[in-house]
């Protein structure tokens, strides 16, 4: 009796809240989403193809460009996979391991800060955006002090780290870590108990634990659905077994829970950093590289290794033919790519405004989705 007048809207690729060049073709009835179809690939650079033509150490800077807001974790995933392939995982010196952990936890904080900033401004809260960038700037300063780069760090090497910590770096981290807890409180005071924020996020994009696993969702979205699974705990790498931290999980699997999980993860990362500082001070300075050959030529074989990147399980699947110095095939399992897949299922039946919140809550980086 009532004729539904559907409208087809191109959401992106040039749109303020698609976090890059995501395009979603929406079929909407009024403002209600009947169907959402993500179109990706606008940022495809053929990174995997490039990996096949480069020696392993040359690949590391290219991993930076995938998840460009969390490049340290990308580096970590790649070098660890190559180390696993070469069987030298156990030879990495303690100091290098701690430095890797510190850098990746700082990266987690900076990535989550960027997520919070954009997520909040998508939902219309303008101020957290600037507050988050204020702290993120301090993290980037720390990165700059360590490796000279702020965004694409290229800060890890196969077998260790490129450089020792610059003098005074740990003090800088300590200063940041001491203040950061209060900064998170500040963001939370603006959002967590805000009625409008809750109205916009509670019950939006609910995904059950079973569905989440079926869709292959990892990282904060999976934990937001109540699955206590974190690769740092489940399959520990580097020196994570020695560090104390909690895995925050949500209950309802909605946008609000994912928000809470990420906020808590920032605190946990902060806590890990606090534990790392005295441990690093105990290790001998300069002991940052394993004694391995200059030439990286792993034996024939194939490995899959993954780490907990800020966005989820970041995995590398490398096949080596044992003859050349470059990977025969290097496949990246990007968390955003897989998590984004669940967007249509999450968005169905919600309003256009919620789609914006959902894209924010999945926390995608198109550089990683498209590679």
């Amino acid at each position, binding site marked *: 009796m009532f004729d539904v007048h559907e409208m087809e809207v191109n959401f992106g690729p040039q749109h303020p809240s698609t976090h890059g060049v995501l395009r979603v073709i929406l079929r909407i009835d009024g403002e209600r989403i009947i169907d959402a179809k993500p179109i990706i690939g606008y940022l495809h650079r053929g990174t995997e193809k490039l990996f096949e033509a480069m020696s392993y150490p040359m690949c590391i800077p290219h991993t930076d460009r995938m998840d460009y807001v969390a490049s340290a974790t990308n580096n970590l995933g790649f070098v660890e996979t190559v180390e696993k392939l070469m069987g030298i995982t156990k030879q990495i010196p303690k100091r290098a391991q701690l430095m890797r952990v510190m850098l990746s936890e700082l990266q987690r904080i900076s990535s989550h800060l960027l997520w919070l900033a954009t997520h909040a401004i998508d939902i219309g809260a303008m101020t957290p955006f600037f507050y988050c960038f204020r702290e993120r700037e301090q993290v980037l300063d720390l990165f700059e002090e360590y490796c000279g780069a702020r965004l694409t760090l290229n800060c890890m090497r196969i077998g260790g780290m490129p450089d020792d910590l610059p003098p005074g770096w740990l003090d800088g981290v300590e200063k940041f870590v001491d203040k950061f807890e209060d900064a998170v409180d500040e963001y939370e005071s603006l959002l967590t108990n805000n009625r409008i924020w809750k109205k916009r996020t509670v019950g939006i994009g609910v995904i059950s634990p079973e569905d989440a696993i079926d869709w292959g969702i990892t990282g904060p979205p999976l934990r937001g659905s109540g699955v206590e699974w974190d690769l740092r705990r489940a399959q520990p790498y580097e020196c994570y077994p020695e560090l104390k931290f909690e895995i925050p999980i949500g209950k309802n699997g909605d946008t609000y829970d994912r928000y809470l999980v990420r906020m808590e993860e920032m605190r946990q990362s902060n806590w890990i950093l606090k534990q790392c500082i005295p441990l690093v001070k105990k290790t001998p300075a300069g002991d940052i590289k394993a004694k391995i050959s200059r*030439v990286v030529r792993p034996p024939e074989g194939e490995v*899959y290794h993954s780490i907990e990147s800020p966005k989820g399980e970041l995995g590398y699947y490398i096949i080596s033919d044992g003859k050349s110095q470059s990977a025969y095939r290097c496949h990246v399992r990007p968390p955003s790519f897989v998590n984004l897949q669940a967007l249509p299922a999450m968005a169905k039946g919600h309003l256009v405004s919620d789609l914006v919140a959902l894209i924010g809550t999945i926390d995608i980086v198109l550089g990683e989705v498209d590679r």
Partner: protein
Amino acid sequence: MTDAPQPPQQSKPAVPAAPAAPAARSVEEIKRDPLVAQACARSGDAIIGAKEFAGEISLTVARDRIADVARAFRDDGFNYLVDLSGVDYSKYPAWTGERFGVSYTLYSFTKNNRVRLKVTTDESTPIPSVTSVWKTANWHERETFDMFGIVFDGHPNLERILMWEGFNGHPLRKDFPIRGIDTGARIYPEVFPEGGGPKAGSTGKDVKDVNIYKGEWKHYGTWPVAEIQQRAAIGGQPPAPELAGVVAETAKPTEEAPWHDPEKALPERMELAKAGSLKDKLFAAMAQTDCTACGWDCEGYAEALAKGETKDITLCVPGEDETESMLKQLMAGAGKA
């Protein structure tokens, strides 16, 4: 904040990334591994091979049975498909099997471990889709189809995902040029002919939709001429920084230069060259890859340094700062710095 209670997964630590065990297990032994035993038993003869490397189990599965095997593994607790990726084996050394392989990495939350299933196929034979087993396989299979042209039978929506509709080719195939093909970008009109690129409304089914560039690529950018001439005058070749890191065939230890081995670490090489002349010591300090990025091979560069033909000690790119500091030390010791 208090000490968090350890989650149940902690009880079983991760499999350490050790090199393959000295006595490799046989296929039957691997299939009896408690991790996969149950699922293997249920799949029966569909599993036609098994391999173990770095603590990871790879099972080769008969192509037609992959969906059933996947379901058996899912029912056995491997309810999370971590990754699905294709491989083009056409350039793999001494490869005799079918051209393409597809790897399925599965994870079990209860066992906290991963298993890899592998199937192979040729250019035309489709592989049964596993989208009915795991929803997440959808985009993975689309990506594999896009990148390799491997067709998945029973996939609900098998279309390109990263490349655009109408793109001609499958980029991750080994015969696809790494420089890419003409996509119609009009950045260099003198290189690309008129009318290249995908056309509006193209379906990708017609070969004429996309104009593939078949000519030679022009080289854009010039060498620093003065530098090349200067180097040519002292006997080396022009520098080629893009060569850095490549190991030449000549990089093998010889009678007179036992240190000429890229697999050896620097202290070891210096130990071998301890008794030699300055040139030998300099030679041993190089990266030993003979990559010619500096303009010479490793021996030539050492000789040039020893004879004073060049004073630049920063040219050894693969040797990084390690080589540089050793060279500096040696040159200072010889009074040439």
